[in-house]
């Protein structure tokens, strides 16, 4: 069985799904990701599905589950890069991907996570050095 790689970039875990996943691969990814969130203490997960030419109910459910699990583990999940044809099909299928945050691409996804994180930092009175200066 193939496995989807998980990259750590700064405070974010980036999962770029490049293959037509079997159901087992999808379930494995769900488990791997939960472990990595705990192990790294990351507060953001970006799942890039630009390469996926379909999302069916199984993958849709996996995305929802990942979002819920990461929320429990104090990480924000954003699904990015859904193609128009995939989105149109999901609407027709009746899958609403409840509770999942989405963005057009990885950059926009990072912005969302940064904004969510910044909101939280507002409550800490010391200023965080990498909140603004992380991007060169």
């Amino acid at each position: 069985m193939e496995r989807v790689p998980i990259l750590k970039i700064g405070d974010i875990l980036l999962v770029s799904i490049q293959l037509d996943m079997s159901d087992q691969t999808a379930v494995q990814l769900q488990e791997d990701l939960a472990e990595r969130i705990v192990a790294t203490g990351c507060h953001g997960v970006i799942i890039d599905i630009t390469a996926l030419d379909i999302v069916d109910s199984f993958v849709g459910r996996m995305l929802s589950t990942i979002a819920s699990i990461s929320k429990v583990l104090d990480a924000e999940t954003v699904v990015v890069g859904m193609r128009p044809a995939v989105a149109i099909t999901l609407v027709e299928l009746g899958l609403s991907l409840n509770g999942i945050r989405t963005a057009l691409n990885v950059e926009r996804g990072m912005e969302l996570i940064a904004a969510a994180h910044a909101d939280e930092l507002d409550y800490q009175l010391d200023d965080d050095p990498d909140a603004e200066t992380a991007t060169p």
Partner: protein
Amino acid sequence: MALSTEESGRFAALLSGQDERVTTRWTEIVTSSLRGRLSQAELRRQVQDLHRAIVSTGEQGIIELSADSAAELRAALSELSRGRARQGFSATETTVSIFALKDVLAELVQESGGPNALQDYVAFSKLVDEMGLFTFESFVRTRESLIADQAEQLLELSTPVVKLWEGVVAVPLVGTLDSARAQVVMERLLQTLVDTSSPYAIIDITGVPAVDTQVAQHILKTVVAARLMGADCIISGIRPQIAQTIVALGIEFGDIATKASLADALRHVLRLNGVETARRQPRRDA
């Protein structure tokens, strides 16, 4: 409908025995029917292609237009009709090029005489009729697909998706929105969101006289699809009658943002993004 083996043999022999004469005469008749809209040389080449295809089919035995052995003949006929359809000739002008062969055959059969002359002529004519019908059919098919292509192009032309601002695209819909057009527009809108990396889309329906349930559903589905992709839609320019239809049809617009005009919609988006717009007019809020 097929010619028997003997008939096929005689048919092929008749045409190949005097091939120069057949093609010349055939070309003459066709040329006069098209009144110079195709060059003599071009027509001659087409007639020769057909002639060759008929003879080589006849040499294989039975001539049956629908048989595998007639594939070359069918291809030659389709090619002729496709070309003519593209060049804008009518169906009659196209099929006449095939029927002209009958005149040639009449002359040849008459000259050769023989005991089977009349019978042969009837059989040959039937085959030519079949070839003519086949040509007509493929002519019509080509025209239909040309028309479908043009309709599609028109559809694309009539649905501009424009980038209004950094991160904001808009589709100003004008005219009657049928289901097919609504679908095309919506697909283009979603693709533009991706291409321009814009998280906001404004669907302006000021120029739409009426919406039915299907069209309203298309718009709604697009809004939901855009959300799945990570973009927000605002609908602007909903006219009073359309608002009434939407309510009467029981269509739920739910939490979709609606604004009176395109300008209001743009202002709304910019405000969401923290861009302060200068307020030159007094506030119009109720």
